[in-house]
């Protein structure tokens, strides 16, 4: 900072007529900096800020089909929130959302990591197999859920026919309230494995081979090599994969709607499907907005956790 004052002092003493020129250049430079930022700010404000604010105001209003025609939405304060918190479905949806997210992420991650470790070794056709693994991720989710609905049918589905070969009685995958959530989590795991495998594989590629060679000299191979070398090296990639996965899984809607529509007797009703039900089936947009704000708050908690974890790693 002291170096900056020297030229100014020199100028004040010397050619005084140059000072207004320097001020203008500084202003133009500052303006240029802002002009680079403005498009991004406008985009975020219009496409993220406005819907967020509108959603919050909608949750405080009685917003129904009439509002679309008359434009009037009477202010009701926290009545929408009160009715959804008091609803019997609130605890059900929170628990289902939690189970769905945790179950999906844990298994997606473990299976994805195992597959990534498996593909670290280059064997014939490994590249081809790895690209085949991407298929579940590339299919439109509504198409996958329609096909899975047929596969999981109790009487004529392919899965039960296959299990029947081993003597397993026809399992009510999508029609039993206890099994429906398990089935939906299973399909979501199938959908999420490609994403986890691909990102973890690229993270594993970044670990230098010399570390493994050095470790094997000291006798650390297999599980110990993984725990002491691989895991610490991919920690940052793991945090990205887990947080992205959690935030994405929290809002999964089309998969559940396609498979069970909220499940036999609300057994697969999550916060996302409940919002859809409230807003687009019952047309009570105020309550739907209230439920979606609860979902946003939950996602926000995970985002804050991610930022905290990232900050710690920078310090390390």
């Amino acid at each position, binding site marked *: 900072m002291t170096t900056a004052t020297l030229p100014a002092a020199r100028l004040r003493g010397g050619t005084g007529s140059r000072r207004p020129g320097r001020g203008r250049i500084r202003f133009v430079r500052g303006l240029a900096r802002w002009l680079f930022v403005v498009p991004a700010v406008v985009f975020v404000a219009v496409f993220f800020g406005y819907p967020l604010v509108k959603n919050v105001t909608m949750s405080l209003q009685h917003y129904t*089909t*009439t509002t*679309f*025609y*008359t*434009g009037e939405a009477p202010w009701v304060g926290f009545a929408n929130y009160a*009715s*959804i918190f008091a*609803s*019997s*479905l609130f605890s059900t949806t929170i628990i289902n959302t939690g189970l769905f997210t945790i179950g999906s992420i844990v298994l997606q991650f473990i299976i994805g990591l195992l597959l990534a470790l498996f593909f670290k070794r280059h064997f014939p056709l490994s590249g081809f197999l790895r690209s085949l693994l991407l298929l579940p991720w590339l299919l439109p989710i509504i198409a996958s859920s329609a096909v899975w*609905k047929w596969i999981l*049918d*109790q*009487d*004529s589905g392919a899965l039960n026919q296959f299990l029947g070969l081993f003597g397993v009685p026809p399992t*009510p995958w*999508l*029609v*039993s*309230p206890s099994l429906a959530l398990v089935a939906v989590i299973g399909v979501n795991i199938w959908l999420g494995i490609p994403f986890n495998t691909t990102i973890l594989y690229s993270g594993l590629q970044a670990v230098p081979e010399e570390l493994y060679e050095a470790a094997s000299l000291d006798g650390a191979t297999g599980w110990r090599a993984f725990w002491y070398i691989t895991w610490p090296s991919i920690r940052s990639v793991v945090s990205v994969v887990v947080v992205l996965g959690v935030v994405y899984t929290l809002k999964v809607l089309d998969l559940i709607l396609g498979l*069970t*529509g*909220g*499940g*036999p*007797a*609300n*057994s697969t009703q999550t916060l996302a499907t409940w919002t859809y039900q409230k807003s*687009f*089936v*019952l*047309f009570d947009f105020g309550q739907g907005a209230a439920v979606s704000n609860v979902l946003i708050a939950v996602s926000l908690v995970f985002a804050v956790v991610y930022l905290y974890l990232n900050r710690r790693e920078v310090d390390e």
Partner: protein
Amino acid sequence: MKKSRIAAVLAGVATVALAITGCSAGGSGGSGGGGKALTIEDYYTKTYDPNYQICAKEVGVKVTINHVAGAGLIAKVLQQASSKTLPDVLMLDNPDVQQIAATGALSPLSNYGLDAGGDVKAVTAAGTYKGKLYGLAPVINSIALYYNTDLLQAAGVQPPKTWDELQAAAQKLTDPSKGQYGFAMSNINTYEGAWQFLPFFWTNGGDEKDIDSAGAAQALQFVVDLQNDGSMSKSSVSWAQADVNNQFIAGKAAMMINGPWQLPALNAAKNLKFDSVPIPVRDASQKITSPLGGEAFTVPVTGDKDKMALAGKFVGCLNKTSTQTKIAGTTGNVPSDSATADAWAKDHPQVASFVTVVKTARARTGELGADWPKAATKIYTAVQLALTGKAQPAAALKQAQAGD
């Protein structure tokens, strides 16, 4: 430098000029020939268009028909209501008419001198909001019990008329070795599932104002018994009416509850001989009360008084008894006018049972009006709670009635 600047300016002027002419051309297009043009919006397919052309000729207008996917019609209507671009003639499924009329977007049909005429009473009940008629349905339908004549003959079973007969017949017709169930219906967690349960619910005294009643519990117990006997697949909680129809055509269900719109698919199925009877009642002294199906035509408030008057004439033409028979011919439904329907049944024996039941059909929005969707949600929630075994029928109804 100068040349490229001039080129840039010319290009900019040319673009602006093209844009302006493009905008103005769009505005004037669309009104060819003589007479006004009306926009119609519905969720049918192109097969319905000839019916509109009949009335377009009669009223002397050109029609622009906009077919929207079924599930997205209401969302589109709401979008159009907020941007004030509603069509001139709007088709709505009859239970939605009161909900949309409550928003103020529809105009009363009495403004155009229209009334229900000789239509079945339920048509007026469905289309009336706060004493004014907003929608008229030219053709209607309901649900009945279809049965596979070959399978029933082979088992020596007569088409059932009471619940006991239905239970016994379904048990006799269930053959696990062939994967054949005696009975199939849709108990899905959407309004379709509620719609299919209504005949049992209403006929036995259930009421949508408070679904927690002894009659309703008895009806629900009957459906649960059909499932627990093994006569109805446990998958019925995930089947829509289309899935039930597929099961019936594939021979996996000997009897099913469905509507006349399935007739084209049923008639196209090879080696399928079927017939239908009204849905059985619990006690021979009861009269079947089936729900009223069918779509109504409405005249939204667009602000253009002349076009609205023409639209009113158009809706009136669609509901004339002569047009009703033409529409019934293309869609497989039943004319709304009672006398016309009776004559229709004589020539079309496949819809005879539907003609019988629509006479005493009940409109879903007859009592609750715009609040029907909440009651429908409660009904299908209760049915699912009972069928999945989460609650006994009486407790399921209580829980659903009290619940959100």
